[in-house]
């Protein structure tokens, strides 16, 4: 298919390109920006005047729920939701059943996502067998099967010794490790940020130190082993401060935050809405301010969805008994764009936190517009407000933003030159 996108404001943060022009696409690749190549006759033209064309978004943290949790979501439903959120490349977590700790599971996920074809899926393997923190997964075999990084998620390691060995082994083969620091004993039994709100609601608190104690250990072991490292889902002011200090010392560590952490805080838990039960928890308003500043300064270079779809029953219980997580991949772009409206970031800088920032963190070939490169594109209308939740696609409707307005709407998403999402 040959496609021309006419008259969009094309923003490519990687090359600092920002102008109103045309894009010409054939055979899944970007053939030209501006003038059409000689003899190029498009079979489809998208009139994109008034729209913004950005590289397709790269989301570093998504639970696809397949295999094993089809009542919460599956590869087809969740990648379709991702396309609606402007995401063309997503890293999926190993928290499947069976856990993504063998090449067979990686291959199954890649096969199914290719069959669905809504988004590029880049699996993250389990650092240890069954995420139990005891025996290393076959990292090299998993890498060769397509895993782009490895993680324990929120599952603890059996010991600091095992963690140190795992990082050394990973460093040997230069595979990146993703950390979500949360000390299990300091967080034990907790369900909300330890602070005045949790105290008043009688919810067991998770102190900030649950994050920072684990982060301090992780930073020391990263430095010792020289492993490539990324932190996913930092939540506290002190954690981003520690990260900034480590970066300033020259440690090449990167980080993302969940988009919803930039908008919500623990005070929103008044009323006990189970939809706001997330892990790690929503922190204080001051922490949220610090996270937003870290995104602004680039200490945190990526915003991710931390998409966790659930079946209705998982949230139709009291707060404490509910499963944590928000279904949010399909509103990643609208949620992130609120930061532009709030004056925190200019549009190109915001788009870099959703494209080049995350791609560079894991060294992924994605998130930029290159001649001859894959046509992964997101088109959106920056001035057309939309109501979140109309035509919801994710199997998980556990999203506290449903029914609210968003500043902009994705109109088209192209993955490999194929139109994978088009707004009605």
């Amino acid at each position, binding site marked *: 298919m040959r496609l021309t996108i006419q008259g969009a404001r094309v923003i490519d943060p990687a090359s600092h390109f920002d102008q109103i022009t045309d894009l010409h696409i054939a055979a899944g690749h970007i053939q030209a920006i501006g003038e059409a190549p000689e003899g190029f006759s498009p079979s489809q033209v998208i009139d994109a005047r008034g729209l913004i064309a950005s590289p397709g978004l790269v989301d570093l943290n998504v639970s696809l729920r397949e295999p094993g949790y089809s009542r919460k979501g599956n590869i087809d439903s969740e990648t379709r939701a991702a396309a609606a959120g402007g995401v063309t490349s997503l890293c999926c977590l190993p928290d499947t059943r069976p856990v993504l700790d063998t090449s067979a599971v990686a291959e199954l996920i890649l096969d199914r996502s290719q069959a669905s074809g809504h988004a590029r899926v880049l699996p993250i393997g389990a650092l240890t067998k069954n995420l139990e923190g005891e025996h290393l997964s076959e990292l090299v075999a998993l890498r060769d099967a397509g895993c782009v990084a490895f993680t324990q998620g929120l599952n603890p390691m059996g010991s600091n010794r095992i963690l140190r060995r795992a990082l050394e082994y990973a460093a040997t083969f230069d595979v990146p490790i993703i950390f979500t620091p949360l000390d299990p004993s300091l967080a034990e039994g907790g369900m909300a940020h330890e602070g005045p709100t949790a105290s008043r609601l009688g919810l067991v608190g998770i102190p900030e130190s649950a994050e920072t104690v684990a982060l301090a250990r992780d930073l020391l072991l990263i430095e010792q082993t020289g492993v490539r490292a990324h932190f996913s889902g930092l939540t506290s002011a002190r954690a981003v401060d520690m990260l900034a200090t480590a970066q300033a010392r020259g440690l090449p560590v990167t980080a993302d935050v969940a988009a919803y952490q930039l908008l919500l805080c623990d005070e929103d838990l008044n009323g006990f809405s189970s939809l706001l039960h997330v892990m790690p928890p929503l922190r204080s308003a001051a922490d949220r301010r610090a996270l937003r500043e870290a995104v602004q300064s680039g200490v945190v270079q990526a915003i991710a969805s931390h998409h966790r779809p659930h079946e209705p029953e998982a949230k139709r219980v*009291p707060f404490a008994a509910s499963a944590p997580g928000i279904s949010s991949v399909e509103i990643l772009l609208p949620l992130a764009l609120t930061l532009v409206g709030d004056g925190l970031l200019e549009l190109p800088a915001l788009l870099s936190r959703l494209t080049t920032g995350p791609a560079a963190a894991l060294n992924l070939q994605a998130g930029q517009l290159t001649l001859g490169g894959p046509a992964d594109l997101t088109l959106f209308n920056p001035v057309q407000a939309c109501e979140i939740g109309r035509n919801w696609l994710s199997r998980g409707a556990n999203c506290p933003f449903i029914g609210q307005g968003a500043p902009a709407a994705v109109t088209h998403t192209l993955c490999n030159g194929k139109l994978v999402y088009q707004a009605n």
Partner: protein
Amino acid sequence: MSQTPQHLQLNHQGQLRHFLTIEGLSRELLTELLDTADSFLEVGERAVKKVPLLRGKTVCNVFFENSTRTLTTFELAAKRLSADVLNLNISTSSTSKGETLYDTLQNLEAMAADMFVVRHSDSGAAHFIAEHVCPHVAVINAGDGNHAHPTQAMLDMLTIRRHRGDFENLSVAIVGDILHSRVARSNMQALKTLGCPDIRVIAPRTLLPEGIEQYGVRVFNDLRVGLRGVDVVIMLRLQRERMQSGLLPSEGEFYRLYGLTRETLALAKPDALVMHPGPINRGVEIESEVADGPQSVILKQVTYGIAVRMAVMSMAMTGQTTQRQLNQEAN
């Protein structure tokens, strides 16, 4: 998003329709509740201890956590209001068969229950039922996790008011495990709302919740300083588990530092009231001689508890019925 507690608890005319927490309720409403309870106290002294306010109504006491005392007083309160009463101890029945809280309550609602009295170990459970499961049934919180125990707080307020007249010039100390206590949280809110000028909490730092200042209380770590000149001492029950989780070294050390004994009580005003939500641990947080002594009103609290629960039930039933009529007229 969820509704704030005040909007959920009141009907469109500002009457109580659920009783979930003290937070957000006005001084006028709490005073009305105490006045109503006062009038019901007299019912308990009659030969025929019944009024027909809830005749023909079905009250379900749904307890997901065991509690003989609270369940009994709610049962008695409902019966004195002439309601039909159903007691369900869910911890030993349907949830062990895998039925969810949502389904259990929906089934009970289908049996045309008019009121649920709910105790549950999850904070926010009563709130969840009132908002998401059975908004048309009056929901009374009989204790949810560490969050709230509003009927206990109101019976404590009734006890104080009947012995001291009002709250305007009182010093009240709450002693012990504030962190895990829904009674302490509800009491601090009730005392504040009713105008008590000096609320003190006395505990080691391990038993104090983060951000306790938000309740407008003064914090003391030393019982012998905190008790000086108070009018009321509310002791809290100390659970044995606290020793295992590293919050306290031993029962003995806690008793030495925070136990209410004849010696420490002497630091309070000479006629200071001694209260406890029960069940008491003699020799752990309170000395037997104090619990049984002349200043103790612990058994009075139990008596007043029935009147307070009658007041809460009759007011919530009225509020819920009024709301139903308002809804029908609106349709």
